[in-house]
């Protein structure tokens, strides 16, 4: 599971929990309101009735707040999704531009993308229906054109700019 999938899963769990809470609360409120209306016909001035009416008002208020919380969670999740889409698109553009600057051939571009996605030589070869030796040769050419030592540096080339902070002083 990727980091974003984990975030999404957590968000989904939170939404489900809030929804369950809201449903139980609405059920309780409807039953309670029914009961209060029944009491209303008997004696609306009794302490019992006034107390129950107060509890009902609190329950209704709880539904309103619960609904607000759920909507905020849903909107937050959507905003995250959208921001992620934008970032994904932007990163794709950066990679595309860089590949062009390195003058990679279309085949090398495909292999480069797959390598960035974390696929190994065997997987790339299977996906492209090519021999492993071909893929290995293509990767070597890509690394040479990019002027990097290997796959780790190749991937780091694109991640580096996304990481806001520099290397911590204690490490360097």
């Amino acid at each position: 599971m990727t980091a974003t999938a984990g975030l999404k899963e957590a968000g989904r769990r939170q939404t489900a929990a809030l929804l369950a809470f809201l449903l139980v609360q609405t059920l309780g409120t409807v039953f309670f309101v029914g009961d209060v209306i029944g009491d209303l016909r008997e004696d609306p001035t009794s302490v019992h009735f006034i107390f129950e009416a107060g509890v009902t008002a609190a329950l209704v208020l709880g539904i309103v707040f619960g609904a607000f919380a759920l909507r905020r969670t849903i909107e937050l999740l959507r905003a995250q999704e959208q921001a992620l889409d934008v970032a994904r698109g932007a990163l794709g553009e950066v990679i595309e531009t860089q590949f062009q600057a390195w003058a990679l051939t279309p085949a090398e571009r495909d292999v480069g993308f797959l390598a960035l996605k974390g696929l190994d030589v065997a997987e790339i070869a299977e996906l492209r229906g090519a021999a492993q030796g071909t893929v290995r040769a293509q990767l070597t050419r890509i690394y040479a054109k990019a002027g990097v030592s290997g796959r780790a540096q190749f991937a780091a080339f694109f991640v580096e700019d996304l990481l806001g902070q520099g290397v911590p002083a204690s490490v360097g």
Partner: protein
Amino acid sequence: MAAPLTLAAPPSLWDPVVRLTHWGIAVSVLANALVTEGGSLWHVLLGWLVLALLMLRLVWGALGPTEARFSAFPPNPVAALRHLGQLASGRVRDYPSHNPAGAMMAYAFWACLALVTVTGLVMTGGATPMQVAADKAAVASGDWSALIRKGGDDNDEDSGLRHTAEEVHEVVANLLLILAALHVAGVVVEGRAMRRNLVAPMLLGERRK
């Protein structure tokens, strides 16, 4: 994508409250119309459940996300007819929420659901499922006072009201089934015209492998 183009299309997945209330009400109404016996504990219980789900959906119509709010699909019969005309000629456009005809269907459903639950409450004298269960248990154990109590405060006016409620309850329940059939037909026709799966957004969304 964040492109504004997608804002005009209906959601690829409705929010969880819309989905829960939709299917909860659909199953409960079908069960009460076709399976449970009127006045039985299950019938009353499902009726109260529908009332709660309806309340939740109406609260959500005021407080929920944009496409679930009433403001996203105001009742507009003229627009609904225009939309049906477009559908007949095969030219359909996208709406950010329910299309105008679907919106009228939603409001018709809610009005019928409100009527059918309120008349149900009048028929049972507002008895909660717990009271119904207690009464049934008492009668079953040979204590018929529950029935007498119910009959005792039955003056003419009250029984007249109950009788009317019963008539309305039955008519509206049948109307609900007709609306449901129309709704399903609408989804099929609309989905075909738009070349889009309209059921998936109401279930789990488009499944990406």
